């Protein structure tokens, strides 16, 4: 476990050599490998197989609400800016139907112990719309009411009132995450997301009053007009709110891929050296404030659920980042949502009209997906271990897959050599472990194991 204080921030030369971008490995293979040849048939087969397990996995439901009232210029999420309420109503009608369709497919004894509303902006929906969705879910799935459940919702503070926080708790949500990004007015203006500190503070207080078990906060560094001093102030303000967990994301400026980002002028962006300094300072600030480093861009208080899970070695990588629900199967609802059931990944159509038509006709609107084979699962296990625990123990892997580690990963181990020489990774007979210096390069290190660019021999899943 890497304590925040031990987090070493690498030199510019190392960052230039290895890069800090690349897939975030919220899944392996990543969504980039999904194939249109995988559709509803494979999805139904995967669900049938997963129902058939002697101990069926609990379910994690993800609902994607793609709508936003206004455009945040940095955003790379799948979203639709609209104020047209009839489009939203149409979407919700389809979503209700989708919930009923999918509810039929999963055995009724499969408890839902994770639920996540993401977006877009889930709080775009009003209280009545949210309540109706939860009631629909309750009707078609067995939603857990246990304290250990993880029912979370992303909150855009600009669309929420403190009074409504209590309503969310009544619906069964027990964890919230606030999208803050930055408190500096100059930065907020440059990315078109203006919200006052006092408003966020009131919402966080309301979340505590309403009994939410966990409050987390998202920040982004590398945004226009940010300076080391301005971001340090944002971090200081956030620490004062004492969230249980915090994400400090690195902004990736890819205007060719995300047209909204063309509204950000490149000359306003902090340079590479400044960005590194910002992350270095933030990590130090958070460490002093008592936060542990969880992995990637995540920090958490030691007694928060993420902090406890990290210590217990029970952390798990999922599409929302890090979670504690290892072994759950994910069912996604709404445009672009990804299900992970059995050996397969299945993504819902991204385009709204097609999604609406498919669901209306009783189809599951699967656009593409991926059925993993045995090698994929062998690789995924290493990537998961590195991303969550910063260490992969060869003996554990060998016990799971009944195969010697080194020969299977001979090529990957060779690829790691330069990173080992630069002190980012230690590779010995027992394990592959990420050093405090290497932590910033988790994606690159995990990427050494990525074989998804090599064509597969067969598209069939093999049984283990």
């Amino acid at each position, binding site marked *: 476990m890497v304590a925040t204080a031990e987090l070493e921030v690498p030199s510019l030369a190392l960052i230039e050599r290895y890069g800090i971008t690349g897939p975030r490995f919220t899944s392996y293979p990543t969504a980039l490998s999904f194939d249109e040849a995988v559709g509803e048939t494979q999805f139904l087969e995967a669900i049938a197989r997963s129902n058939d*397990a002697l101990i069926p996995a609990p379910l994690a439901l993800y609902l994607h609400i793609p709508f936003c009232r206004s455009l945040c210029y940095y955003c790379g999420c799948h979203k639709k800016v609209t104020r047209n309420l009839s489009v939203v109503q149409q979407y919700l009608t389809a979503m209700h139907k989708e919930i009923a369709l999918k509810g039929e497919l999963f055995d009724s004894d499969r408890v839902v112990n994770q639920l996540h509303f993401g977006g877009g902006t889930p709080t775009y929906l009003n209280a009545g719309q949210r309540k109706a969705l939860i009631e629909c879910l309750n009707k078609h799935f067995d939603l857990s009411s246990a304290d250990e459940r993880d029912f979370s919702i992303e909150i855009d503070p600009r669309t929420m009132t403190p009074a409504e926080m209590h309503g969310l708790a009544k619906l069964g949500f027990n964890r919230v995450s606030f999208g803050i990004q930055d408190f500096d007015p100059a930065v907020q203006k440059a990315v078109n997301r203006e919200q006052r500190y006092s408003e966020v503070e009131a919402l966080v207080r309301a979340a505590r009053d309403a009994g939410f078990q966990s409050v987390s906060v998202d920040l982004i560094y590398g945004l226009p007009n940010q300076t080391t001093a301005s971001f340090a102030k944002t971090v200081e303000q956030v620490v004062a709110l004492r969230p249980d967990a915090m994400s400090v994301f690195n902004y990736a400026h890819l205007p060719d891929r995300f047209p909204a980002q063309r509204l950000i002028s490149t000359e306003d962006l902090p340079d590479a050296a400044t960005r590194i300094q910002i992350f270095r300072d933030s990590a130090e600030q958070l460490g002093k404030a008592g936060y542990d480093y969880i992995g990637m861009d995540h920090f958490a208080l030691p007694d928060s659920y993420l902090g406890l899970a990290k210590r217990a070695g029970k952390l798990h990588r999922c599409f929302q980042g890090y979670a504690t629900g290892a072994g759950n199967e994910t069912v996604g609802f709404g445009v672009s949502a990804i299900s992970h059931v059995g050996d397969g990944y299945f993504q819902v159509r991204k385009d709204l009209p097609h999604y609406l038509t498919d669901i209306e006709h009783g189809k599951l609107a699967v656009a593409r997906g991926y059925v993993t084979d045995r090698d994929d699962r062998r690789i995924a296990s290493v990537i998961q271990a590195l991303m969550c625990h910063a260490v992969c123990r060869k003996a554990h892997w060998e016990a799971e897959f009944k195969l010697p580690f080194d020969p299977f990963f001979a090529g990957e181990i060779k690829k790691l050599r330069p990173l080992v020489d630069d002190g980012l990774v230690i590779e010995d007979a027992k394990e592959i472990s990420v050093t405090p210096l290497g932590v910033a390069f988790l994606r690159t290190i995990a990427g050494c194991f990525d074989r998804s660019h090599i064509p597969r021999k067969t598209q069939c899943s093999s049984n283990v």
Partner: protein
Amino acid sequence: MDKARGVSNRHQQESPDIGRLAPKDALRCSGCAVGGLCVAAGSDAATLSRLDEILRTDDSIDGSRIVIRKGDPFNGLIAVRSGCFKSFTIDRDGREQVQGFHFPGELIGLDAIDGKRHRADVIALGSAGLCSLDYSQLLQLSSCSDGLRDQLFRLFSSKLANQNWRTGDYTADERIAAFLLDISERLERRGCNSEDFELLMSRSDIGNYLGLATETVSRVFGRFNTNGYITVKRKRVIIDDRDGLSNLADAVLEQL
């Protein structure tokens, strides 16, 4: 429907077909992997070669194929060669009742000897193989072979002993422990891995058979998994603590 008749129809086929179906040693009683516990156990060489002549083998049965329909005329017995079969009935309200599961070396259709009609549907759980044995030919053959007659009676009687062992006032844990040990013993008898096996039947089949709710089946498997009695990986069961299971199951198994 056609598939369902695949087996019983073959009984009416003419003898040249027999030679075509059993060209290889592996497809004969004399060369069969489960021969040691099937009908051929204890038979001399002459009886074996006669058995080879009367049996019809089908190793290409795929999952979910119904090999016997309830009410089908009884023509002969079926011996399981590989895989697993489930016998079940559907009552007038459409509710299924699982009668049993059949493993290699075991006979299906004994309950139809009296009444001459099959009393249950039999379906393959995954790919499987079986042998059909014409009943009148089998009787004829057994009248001239003490070894075969003896083995047939033994198989008939062990089948009877297994009936209804799941009724009685037992807890879910006891029933499932007994169920697992019963399967493990049956696998051991045919020389298969009895510590690490795949349960091809569904959770709801197991629940139905044992008189338990499906949810209870997964809950008990979950508990056994946590307590260290077994390790469950999807459909695979590894027995880690046979003594622990035996302590639970003894009360049930004593009734067998």
